[in-house]
């Protein structure tokens, strides 16, 4: 059965890119969220196998989402995809239980490769 993915990004463009790449690689995109509130509700409701997470969202940081989902004991693998290449954010994310991260811009191959390592 295809692995289920939730895509979280406030840019429709970025969501489309990620969606195409993941579907190409055989994933099933079960949902997309453009803000943190939606993301958390969708993630807890659908319990996907994988969540791709942008860090800067209109209502909160990807780190906030990550923290909340971990507090809720969600077992989905989470990969952060963010233009913010700051080491501090990545460190913080890893501390909070992030499974992997990817810095924009990226190629579809880089994305599937990073995901392949955690799933």
């Amino acid at each position, binding site marked *: 059965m295809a692995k289920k993915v939730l895509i979280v990004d406030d840019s429709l463009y970025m969501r489309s890119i990620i969606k195409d790449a993941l579907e190409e690689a055989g994933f099933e995109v079960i949902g997309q969220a453009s803000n*943190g*509130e*939606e*993301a*958390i*509700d*969708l993630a*807890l*409701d659908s319990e996907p196998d994988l969540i791709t997470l942008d860090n800067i969202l209109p*209502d*909160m*940081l990807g*780190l*906030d*989402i990550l*923290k*909340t989902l971990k507090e*809720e004991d969600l077992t989905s693998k989470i990969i952060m995809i963010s233009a913010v290449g700051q080491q501090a954010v990545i460190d*913080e994310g890893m*501390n*909070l239980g992030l499974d992997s991260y990817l810095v924009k811009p990226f190629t579809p191959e880089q994305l599937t490769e990073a995901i392949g390592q955690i799933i």
Partner: protein
Amino acid sequence: MKEEELKQIFLAEAQDSFEQLNRLFTQLEKNHADREATEAIFRIIHTLKGNAAAMGFEDVASVGHLLEDIFSEIRKGNITLTSMVFNDLFKAIDKLGEMIEGVKVDKKVPYKGMRAKLKVILRNLKGEIEYEHTQGGESSEKKDKEIEATLQKQLEEELTESQKETLASEQPVPIGIPLADEFMDEEEKKSKITFSDFVQVPVSKLDTLLNLVGELAIEKDRIIAQGASVGVTNEYTRLYRITSDLQYSVMGVRLVQVGALFHKFHRIVRDVASIENKKVNLDLQGTEIEIDRNVLQIISDSMIHLVRNAVSHGIEGPEERRKKGKKEQGTIQLRATSDKEYVIIEVNDDGYGIDANKIRKKVVEKNLATPEAIASLSDDDVVKFIFEPGFSSVDNVTSVSGRGVGMDVVKKAVDAVGGKINIKTVLGQGTTFSLSLPSSMAVKSALLFIINNTEYAIPLSFTEAVISVKKSSIHKVGSGLVTSHLDDTITVMFLRDIFDCKDNEELQNPQLLHRSFDQIEDPEAKINIVVVSVDNKMIGFVVDRLLQQKEIIEKPLGKPVENARFISGATILGNGNVCLVLDANDISEFLFKPTFATV
């Protein structure tokens, strides 16, 4: 107390809190520094959260908890509100409402996203950026106690004042639940116990009570009618008085203030105005006027529709208003007044007004009338076309009002409770919709009459006049009949014609409405007509014989005849006969369908 009952009480209170929060938020939005509103919001949320936690409604409790934290900081002056945050807080209140509704219907509402969002808001408001890995339950508990303590202190101060007053004026009867004990200082007030002066009762219990009283009233009529025939009338005077007092008391219990509905509009007006970028002020009048709770419930959607329309189509944008020399801020006024058995609710705006000529054009476009017919009508009559099914005066559909729900739906709801709707408009100055609603649904005055030796009733809210005319002054027009009444030509129908029909097919017979008329041979024969006004049209119902005017308690028809045509319900008369109540709206609809259209 049973779990379910507790839940009902919680829900009633939570619903009330939710409405208050909406009102207070609207107030706070106008003035972010409004201390009174901040305090009130804090207190209401605190109570709501506490109750929800006690009931085990984790979702309401946790979102409530965060809102409480945010407001706790605001009232301490640690953070100031910004307009941006405001919309988010409003959404959080919406979420609370959704969750309360969810508790009611046993549906889980996703809330953890909102909770995370609120945490972020709180953090941003405080200007801290930190990611604590663990947040001890202890610290939040401690904070809770702190809040509890300050609240308690405040409430004590308020309570001691008000308690002194109530205790001095009246000694409460010692039954019920001591509600205020949590606010009291054990040492000082051990001896004082106060009781709430109100009890909450589910509407279903009131409905049952009213039903029983209704049956009692009918039984009373029957006994008194029997008594009268054997000459013991005097003995029954007391019975008569007490039952009718009881009936009115029970009806009184069901009355609620229209404010319960009006206050919901602060939020609706604010939301619609903000979407449309308009400045609108809401003015409420007569909020203390009382009306049957069920009537209010049935028309509430219509009211929402009217108010939304008023904001989105009635009021002009600020720029346009300024150019017209009006105040930038438009005003919508909701006003209730009471008039005997009726409550009049008016929705007034000081905006565009309705252009009768535009309506004329639209009516012709939509084929609702011929250009000649519409040209001969006065502006006031033309405007009434907006209540016609299939008419929508809006040129461009907007997200707020263009929902395909037309004014005809509003009219239907008003009809359903036996009310009337009217419209007054002055171009450039504004529009007023006025809804005349029965203050109580249970008892209505009705006119009794006889057709085919059977008694029927029609609510007085429909009747305009009772006239008697000669057969020769009734004329055939098309497949129908007309006569003149006060210089107007009105449609006339023999009720017997439709009640004698065996099946639906017979109802469609185009000769139907001439049958009884043709059977009367004497042109001088007197014909009794009850003139009713339905949908702003006058119709004359021909009856065999008129009886008296009487207060009746109408009950809906039971199965299997609940969908019977032309009949809205039934009542039992003093003589024990069942009397059917005419559904004038349904008859009018039937009559003005193309098959029989006479005008």
